[in-house]
């Protein structure tokens, strides 16, 4: 029986996009539930940052067995950056890695990201979206830094939700 490659691949592709949509919506449904439970006195940003801290720490711990220092710091950094990019790619973003100004710096560029769209759909502010991403990234690095006894930092230089067309984050070794 011949394989209809178009049908099979596009079927999977559509399922992937459906699953990616569910990831975003599930986060925001939980956020809605959390805000309802927390009551009117709580700032949505505080709830979002708390969740972002939990998410980032979980992701960071998940990376520990997969990062290999023995391949050298350059390769280790590329693996770390790739793992961070993959986290967003799985959600539907398009993320590219670029070399930074030194061997201990990598730039991550998000040319597309579904999260601001979800934020809009559920009435979250664009600033909350940026700051929660920042918090996730910081939290990822906390355990990674401790485990490998290094001091890497990440900072946002551009953000789609701020109308800058893309998100750019600089992952670098702090002196």
């Amino acid at each position: 029986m011949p394989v209809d490659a178009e049908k099979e691949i596009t079927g999977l592709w559509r399922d992937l996009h459906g699953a990616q949509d569910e990831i975003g919506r599930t986060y925001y449904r939980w956020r809605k539930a959390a805000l309802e439970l927390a009551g009117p006195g709580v700032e949505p940003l505080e709830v979002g940052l708390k969740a972002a801290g939990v998410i980032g720490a979980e992701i960071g711990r998940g990376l520990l067995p997969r990062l290999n220092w023995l391949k050298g710091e350059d390769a280790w950094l590329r693996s770390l950056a790739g793992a961070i990019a993959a986290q967003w790619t799985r959600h539907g973003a398009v993320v590219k890695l670029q070399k930074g100004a030194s061997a201990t710096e990598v730039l991550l560029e998000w040319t597309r990201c579904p999260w601001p769209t979800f934020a809009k759909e559920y009435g979250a502010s664009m600033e909350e979206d940026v700051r929660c991403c920042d918090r996730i990234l910081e939290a990822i690095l906390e355990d990674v830094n401790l485990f490998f006894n290094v001091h890497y930092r990440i900072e946002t230089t551009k953000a789609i939700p701020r109308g800058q067309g893309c998100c750019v984050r600089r992952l670098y070794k702090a002196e």
Partner: protein
Amino acid sequence: MSKLLFAWDYSSYPGAKTYPNLFQPIRIGNLTIPNRIKYAATEDNFNDPEGFITDADVAYMRARAEGVVGGLCVMQGVYMDLGRQGQGYVGQAAAWHDRFVPGLKRIADAIHDERAVAGFQLMHCGRVGAVEVERCQAPSYVPQRLRVFKPVEAMSKEDIRRGVEEHADAARRGIEAGFDVMEISGIVGYLLSNFISSYTNRRTDEYGGDIRGRMRFAVEVIQAVKAVCGTDVPLGIRLCCEELLDDVRGNSPAESIASYQIAEEAGVDYISVTAGWQESIVPVISRDVPMGSWLHLAKRAKEHVKVPIQMAYRLFKPDLPDRAIGAGELDVWEMCRPMIADPLMPKKVLEGREEDIRFCVACNLCLARLFRDAPMTCYINPRCAHEHDPRFTPQPAAEPKTVLVVGAGPAGLECAYVAAQRGHEVHVYDRRPVVGGTLNEAARAPYGDEELLTCRDYQKTQCEKAGVEFHLGVEVTPERIAEEAPDTVVLATGPVYVRGQGAGFERDNVVNVLDVMAGTAAVGARVVVWGNRKPGIGVALKLAREGKRVTLVGRNRSAGFDINPSFKWRYMIYLRQNKVTAYNDCDIEEIQDGAVVVRTYDGYRFPVACDTVVVTERERNDALKPAVQAEGIELFVIGDALVPRNLSSAVHDGYRIGLRI
């Protein structure tokens, strides 16, 4: 004794002979209206955020009042509640306080200045209201199909009582403002229709139940407003004859007719027939619905009630209502969109100048803007919404110039006649032997696109009347520009069709959309259309209806990115119905023998079987620009040559540059 506000004698006008039924008087209540023409109430979002009437709205209504040549001209429906739950549009006029009366009077006076009959409409937007507040009102809590609307709040009996009172109070203000006819809106999802429909009225009290119970609120409103109107001011109501909500168990046609009979019993003097709701999932008024499709509803209404029956709904040409009135199937020809596109449309019919009518192309851009809180505009009438602004009216040119327009498409023609009307000497060149540019091919797309040619025909006539000189079948070269040495050159050359960056675009089986639409390109059984904007969708549907297996591949995130949302959803239905597969956010990576490789935005690739690739992607056209600039000639680039867009942009570009030269 019937009252006649303004006497009109149409006997000497050619239109009254061609369409004798349209220009006969009609008695509505105790008022005689000189003809059968009505500008039906239309929201425009021109008024200020508090609901006070603006100069823009007065000028807009004055133009339509001139157009009805003595007929009935109804202003937009007003909301009537301080809490603004009845407000469905950001620029909707208000009438919840006496302080709105002076503004409303300006509208009535403007209509009377044109010797037309002034109509006032009461419109609580019900479950599609509350545009500025958090919750809208309806008889029962039933969520809306469309997410754009606010959450629904079920009305208490006190709310209902207050609603009736607000209708009566607003009616009194309308009469104080000088309006001659009162109208209640009970259509398309507004409050009265919410009560009448079995879809949205789930009440178990006396305001729910069978159709008589569901009509109770409407009857109370009619009686309260009628008490205010007395015998001098006729009262009409707009009601759905078919809700087209079968999928959510809306009213049956029999129930809708029963609502007409109950309204008549309650005392209305006329009924305006409508079809469909904003939540209906079938096309009702776009150009894919043939003209005259809904006349059977007017006929049905006439068979069941005695009061005059009025109707709009795809009656864009005068012969249709004229015949229907003659056959006793309709009494008054209503218009909204045809008079948005051309406010003087019926006047031109009367004067025998039908060739001067700019016909509506039923694109629904006007509605799409209203629903998105933007001031109304018209796809093909650039003056719409600018009637109050003298800068949008052609004025004689301070210094007559010779103008060379390159391209006889919609942008070039629009610019040419406007410039010529202002006194310029205008020459239009086109390498094609006919005018219309790519509109000639675009109009071959299915689902009513042939109506787009009315734009070309109008522009051509206006050019001819304004003395524009055509040079068709002539290619304009830099040498010709240098030789002619005009004062101004307008480049309206249309777009450049581009080939993709993928491999294989040079193959013989890659053809251009214009050739396919014109029927001059050979097209195989399996087709990939490259480009998912309107040209791509048009050719995809054409080929699919010819029996081809069509796949649409485009770089935009959704197909029809350039089509207004009030029309786009129909194309999505037609693509599905015709089994066109759409891969959006994708590009063609390679064209191979018998297949193309499609690449998704996120990097996945898959093959699509294909015999022919149709190119529809366009870019701006810079040809001739350096040549004109080198000669130091004043230059304008318009339409798709500037940025590939749509017919509307071409017309608007052309008009504005025609005013600027």
